[in-house]
């Protein structure tokens, strides 16, 4: 069953700058789909186009369609998109800084019909991430980066969405913390949550993803099952930082003006 589908999506900023140039992709229910690519490739723009938060940057979906579980959602208000079951965890760890950790979670569950259900979901978050339970009364602005990232995932869980679109969950996290975060994501995936994962840390992303797309310059340039991509030479070199022989080379040995992108021809 198709959960999310993008057909030939174009995004324009300020009516002038074309940022996405015909992007198509599919996310099936229960899958984790990763979107990889360099910085400025258009990954975040894609995510914002899906979640409806483009508007705040003067951007619009100028062509194509985005369908979420049968509902077209292109250019829909962000809050409506959430009501249709997609929640967007933004990059930059934007917690509600002046609220406590638990208040953040409660706001996340603001659409929950009754308090018993709210309690249930809170418990679910706390069993999955016991650390948040310990910190429930801490002002979230004073928590560490890793804790904030967990809080954001917990906050998304509170809405029990059909699909979580998550942007750079590993950004600025220590290796152990990245592992913790991905453990939580894996756990959620095994519970049946669909993920749309935008990630710079390709190794981590490919470890959980079923399928992946690679983006360059506002276009999809490559896609395939995650394990296949992980074996691709170019992916290895540009995203995983290993040479064809599978060994990592030292940053001290890097030379300039050496590379060119083969797939762009």
């Amino acid at each position, binding site marked *: 069953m198709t959960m999310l589908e993008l057909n030939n999506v174009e995004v324009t900023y300020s009516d002038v700058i074309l940022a996405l140039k015909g992007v198509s992709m599919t996310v099936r229910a229960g899958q984790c789909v990763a979107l990889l690519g360099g910085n400025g490739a258009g990954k975040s723009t894609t995510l914002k186009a899906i979640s409806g938060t483009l508007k705040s940057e003067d951007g619009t979906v100028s062509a194509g369609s985005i369908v979420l579980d049968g509902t077209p959602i292109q250019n829909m208000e*962000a809050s409506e998109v*959430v009501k249709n079951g997609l929640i967007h965890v*933004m990059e930059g760890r934007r917690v509600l800084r002046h609220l406590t950790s638990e208040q953040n979670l409660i706001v996340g569950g*603001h659409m929950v019909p009754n308090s018993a259900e709210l309690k249930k979901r809170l418990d679910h978050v706390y069993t999955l991430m016991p650390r948040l339970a310990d910190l429930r009364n801490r002002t979230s602005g004073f928590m560490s980066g890793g804790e904030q990232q967990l809080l954001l995932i917990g906050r998304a869980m509170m809405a029990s969405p059909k699909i979580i679109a998550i942007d750079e969950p590993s950004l600025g996290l220590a290796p152990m913390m990245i592992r913790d975060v991905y453990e939580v994501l894996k756990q959620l995936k095994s519970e049946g949550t669909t993920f749309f994962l935008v990630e710079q840390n390709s190794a981590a992303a490919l470890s959980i993803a079923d399928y992946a797309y690679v983006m360059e310059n506002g276009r999809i340039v490559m896609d395939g099952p995650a394990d296949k991509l992980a074996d691709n030479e170019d992916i290895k070199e540009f995203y995983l930082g290993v040479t064809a022989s599978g060994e990592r080379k030292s940053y001290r040995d890097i030379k300039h003006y050496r590379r060119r992108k083969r797939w762009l021809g």
Partner: protein
Amino acid sequence: MVYFINDIITGALIGLLYSLVAMGFVVIYRASKVFNFAQGELVIIGGFIVWFTTMQAGLSLWLSIPLSLVLAGLVGYAIERIFLTKLIGESVFSMVMVTVGLLILLRGLVLLVFGPAVRPFPIIFPLKPLFLGDMLIPMNLLIGGIITIVAAVGLSWFFNRTRSGLRMTAVAEDHVVASSMGISVKGSIAVAWVLGAILSTIGAMIFLSGKSLTFLASDIGFAALPVALFAGLESIGGLILAGIIIGIAQSLTTNYLDPLIGGSLGSVVPYIIMLAILLIRPTGLFGWRTIERV
């Protein structure tokens, strides 16, 4: 001595009236991060609605007061729909600036619809003051003070404890984050303006009961401003304390210092206190501290 205490009590009650008007600022700020410069204009619009339903339409108070509050809410809603909805997603700065335009526009509208004449305002609270021995306490201010305290307690419970309140708080923290969580920024701001307009109308009733109404009454907005800043723009409960302190200071200045200097120090004293407190605590007594992550 009795008179001195009386001056303190009256001052505190006037301060609570400022708190109530300031609550309009804070509610709108608290739920949308927009500082509404046209708050004083909301007070006179509320006042004119009350005047219209009572003096013009001739309804009894029991009918006209709830009706006025409903109408005021509608006006607040309409303002939000016409002027602010389209700006959601723009910077908060733009939204604040639109309230500057609104200030001029609403003044014009009030003149257009109701004319510039001075109108008698209905007597909503008994004119006869409460006598406590030698002390006398104006009824409108007394009842107003009670309403203010009840409203403050209720609203701070609402914002800090209820889910709807937290939802609005989330909007004030960050519009984009809030909408990414499925919170309707539009809805939250609409509720804020409805609440703000209703509070302003209650403020107008207390302020103007038995007095007269012109667009000069919008000055109360700027009189209440120091109270809002003194308390901190996010704090509803803090308004009570801030209002009482500023009200007493103003009353004592007006009654004991002004006659000595032959001027009106009382009218600037709130601003001086506000400046002093802000230099010590830059976000007011109870405002959110800025949490900066570098």
